[in-house]
């Protein structure tokens, strides 16, 4: 069951992490111009 929980969370966390990283990079333009 633990492996299934980790796999499930990974499946949703990976695209979310992709989006957050991309957005943070974009947001950094606010401070760098």
């Amino acid at each position: 069951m633990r492996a299934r929980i980790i796999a499930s969370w990974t499946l949703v966390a990976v695209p979310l992490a992709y989006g957050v990283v991309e957005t943070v990079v974009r947001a950094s333009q606010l401070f760098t111009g």
Partner: protein
Amino acid sequence: MVPSFLARDRIVATPGFSRWLVPPAALAVHLCIGQVYATSVYKTSLVERFDVEQTTIGFIFSLAIVMLGLSSMTFGTWVDRNGPRAAMAVSTVFFVSGLLIASLGVSTGQLWLLFLGYGVVCGIGLGIGYISPVSTLIKWFPDRPGLATGMAIMGFGGGAVIAGPLEGRLLSFFDSDFDPAKATTSSADAHAITMMFLVLGVFYAVLMTFGTLTVRVPPDDWKPEGWNPSEVRAKSLVTTASVSASTSVRTPQFWLLWVVLFCNVTAGIGIVEQASPMIQDFFREGDASTVTAAAGAGFVGLLSIFNMAGRFVWSSTSDVVGRKPIYMLYLGVGLVLYLLLALVGSTSTVLFVLLAAVILSFYGGGFATVPAYLRDLFGTYQVGAIHGRLLTAWSAAGVAGPFIVNGFLDAQGEPGTLTADAYQPALLTMVGVLAVGFVANLLIRPVAEKYHEPGTDDGRATARAGEPERSTR
């Protein structure tokens, strides 16, 4: 009515099932349908494709939000009766079909297909998908309902965070001339938009199917290990009695909460709607702004992160401090922050960004906390259906918010060429809107016993209409 493998009684969790599998199932759905807030990347491309005004394309997205409210209201009781798997399956079919129809519309140049696909069919999928996991999560997490619904509804904010960059990359992959960094001026060709909708449809079909197959409902007698239901009864705004969806709309509490959500969302949209031109206008010196267009886009990205994070952080906090106090924070402190934004926001970029970011976190928090507030007031019996009815406040705010902001700004000129003073009337109006919401929240009392379903009263001294409240937790 639904195929047997989707039926509620087929997805009752067996012993050994972990409730921590349910939030990722809910997130999988919300991360997909949250795409509706990431439309600015291809909006200009659609305007060029169909040779229409920005407002025409903007109307398609507004239509999707209106359909969200209408479908969640219409199908809320069906969702509660048939369970989350059936609801997620139907949501997947509608949302993905809508994207495919939109893709066909772009490919063939038929604007009506875009209206039908994205505005109507996707919109129905949005509404059913949004409410599909709420009641189930509340039943799995009676000890932390704010945390549970916060995790799911954070996914809706996260959906835009994922879809924005993904759409930009897809469009530039299929059309090398498209520059995602200049999405408001650069436009992709029809083939690229068509393929983007197709790829998104396939990606979302896979992720939403995972959620559909993973979700389970708890057995009727299930409760978390070590959790004592009598702790719930100890809080005066929290009931263990049940109120049906049809009865809930006859209570003043439902309509007060409707006003609370409407005001919170309307005020948030005030910033969301004009974020990029707004920050440039606030720091304009002569004809030029000290904030570049790229920095404005960065500001929009930062707000989306705070919007998403606020959903989880504030909703989880409400489990500790109580639902009514957290809305006093959203609306009361939000009101002060809006006032500061209007009066001194132009004195410092850092101050402006900080104020707007916290306001957006309250906006997200308001969405995520409301299911737990409904659980507190009306019980778990038909909380999904009640939530569906309440979401009409979102649809109404989706019309009222832009109407207020654009109404004031249109009288001043074109956003992107204005100064901070031009925004004051709109921002001060939002202060008034938040004040109305704050008062509505203050007026919320426990639901009177006469509205409870027979035999579900929790035995404590339930407040009757007009009786003063003993605690705010």
